[in-house]
């Protein structure tokens, strides 16, 4: 009985916060637009009883999903989002791993402070941090003024409103999500293993590749998923730092919703985005489970 209750809580949680909103979005994606409040038809009318619900169900169709396949815009936006998310994830890993490694190898009494430094930026609003990048990267911004002041460049570098700025924004914003799981994995590692490897003839670099990296694999995988999944649907960073050419599904969704007032098509875009995301999430879950089994 107690066991059933314990299991019921997370399932209720999922039901209320995931399944119900998903069903609402799915329902809208099967509707048609209308000039009304809310701007789609049909709406569910419970006052007519079963006949009303049946009539409602009959008016739903998959027209909006067919529409998405007819315009190359949508799949190209999905593809370009996947590409941007993948590249950002790799960059974040390249920046995050050395930081996590440095933290894990630092003397024990320093670690809490270093951890604090990684988490500290979260105390400032995410929006303010992205806006401050606009101030740093713009044509007359801090970076260009510095480089021009030092005489390194004559013309300002155009970074803001390009994909480069989007990568900088994503790497900066999601860096802690990469550092923390890798740090957690590295911190648990026994330093004696490295000594043993060196005793057996490994150079320090080979020991790093053969011992440290495999032992931090779980942390790397967790960090990559934590960066990749939110980066894929990212809207704020590309719309503030990106240029007109930055194509991401978050922006396409915004346009369907706001410019076309086409909630049904916007919902269809969102449903497909969710399906694309579910695959890495399932892989992530499996990975976690394997890890638990190995440890347990």
């Amino acid at each position, binding site marked *: 009985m107690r066991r059933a209750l314990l299991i019921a809580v997370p399932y209720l949680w999922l039901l209320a916060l995931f399944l119900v909103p998903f069903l609402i979005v799915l329902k809208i994606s099967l509707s048609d*637009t209308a*000039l*009304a*409040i*809310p*701007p789609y038809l049909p709406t569910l009318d419970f006052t007519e009883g079963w006949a009303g619900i049946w009539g409602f169900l009959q008016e739903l169709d998959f027209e909006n999903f067919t529409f998405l396949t007819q*315009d*190359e*815009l949508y799949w*190209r*936006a999905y593809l370009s989002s996947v590409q941007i998310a993948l590249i950002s994830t790799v960059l974040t890993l390249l920046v995050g791993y050395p930081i996590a490694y440095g933290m894990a190898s630092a003397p024990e009494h320093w670690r809490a402070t270093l951890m604090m430094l990684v988490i500290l930026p979260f105390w400032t609003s995410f*929006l303010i941090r992205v806006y401050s990048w606009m101030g740093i990267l*713009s*044509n*007359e*911004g801090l970076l260009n003024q510095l480089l021009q002041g030092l005489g390194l460049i004559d*013309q300002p570098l*155009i970074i803001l*409103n390009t994909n480069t700025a989007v990568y900088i924004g994503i790497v900066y914003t999601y860096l802690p999500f990469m550092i923390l799981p890798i740090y957690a994995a590295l911190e648990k590692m026994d330093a004696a293993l490295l000594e043993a490897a060196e005793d057996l003839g490994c150079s320090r670099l080979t020991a790093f590749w053969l011992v440290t990296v495999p032992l931090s694999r779980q942390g790397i995988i967790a960090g990559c998923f934590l960066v990749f999944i939110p980066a894929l649907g990212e809207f*704020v960073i590309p*719309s503030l730092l990106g*240029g*007109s*050419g*930055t*194509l991401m599904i978050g922006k*396409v969704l915004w*346009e369907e*919703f*706001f*410019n*076309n*007032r*086409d909630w049904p098509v916007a919902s269809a875009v969102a449903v497909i985005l969710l399906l694309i995301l579910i695959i890495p999430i399932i892989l992530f879950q499996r990975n976690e489970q394997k890890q638990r089994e190995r440890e347990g």
Partner: protein
Amino acid sequence: MMTHRFLSLTAAAALLASAATAEEVRVYNWSDYIDEALLEKFEAETGIDLIYDVFDSNEVLETKLLAGGSGYDVVVPTGSFLQRQIQAGVFQKLDTSKLTNMGNMWDVIQDRTARFDPDNAYSVNYMWGTTGIGVNTAKVAEVLGEGAPVDSLALIFDPANMEKLQACGVHMLDAPDEVVPAALTYLGLDPNTQEADDLAKAEALLMSVRPYVQKFHSSEYINALANGDICVALGWSGDILQARDRAAEAENGVEIAYNAPKEGALMWFDQMAVPADAPNPDAAHKFINFIMDAQNMAAASNYVYYANGNKASQAFLAEDVIGDPAIYPTAEALANTYIKGPYPPKVQRVVTRLWTKVKSGI
């Protein structure tokens, strides 16, 4: 997301003092669009707590209104959007008996706004302006020479000009409802056209200049122009004049000028209206009537450099507002403007798709 929430200090204090009982009015207006001293004045005069939120695109406002239950008492959509929203049943008719300042309104503007809102039954004009070209005079002269066509759409729609201007930066409004009609005007076509062929020509024109546009955005250009980050913007008259004044205040040597395009300028009207489900329509009318007061309206225009539809306020306008033809165009210039109506859903989809293609290349 791009809106920031403004809560005047007095409102916050009043909220704390009388959380549950105080009467409230919630206003949703464009960003950088009022003298904030007026908000405090309204609270002092009426004792109503004013909660003032801002947006920077009609699309955001419209989506909130169509979702229903926005919680706002007064909203300020642009004419063409208002027209469609009236059809969707978003607004309630104004109770003119509560609007004692109705006599202040300017018939010239009332006649034009009646094309969006017949008999002006649902809305009162807040401000109006034109969509035109803002330039950093020194930088544009440096790039294109002294004879640069700063008062012509050729500046932004001729690829030869844009190719040179891209180095110093060009922004355009992220508003297909404004930029597409401008492109059509440059081509000598009807800005209100719904013909697929004409729209395709506008698309081809926009595609030819898109590589040189740094960003399509509807509010960033104010700061970007003022800081000297960009040298040309297709934007709203008063916003560009605000950029001019911010640059002058900062004394950073940046000089900004605004010109309505000589080929014809889009004239738009931002209208105060009350949503059908407004929590406090009575206070909403009080707020609208307060703004319709000649001196209050003049204070707002003097602050934001936009013309208003209030005839009586003109006596209180500063000389650099009423006397500036970029704000109050001459009768001749006024005749050279056009009004843009809403698109039906099918054409809207074509225009949005065209716009996505212009912005992303796909």
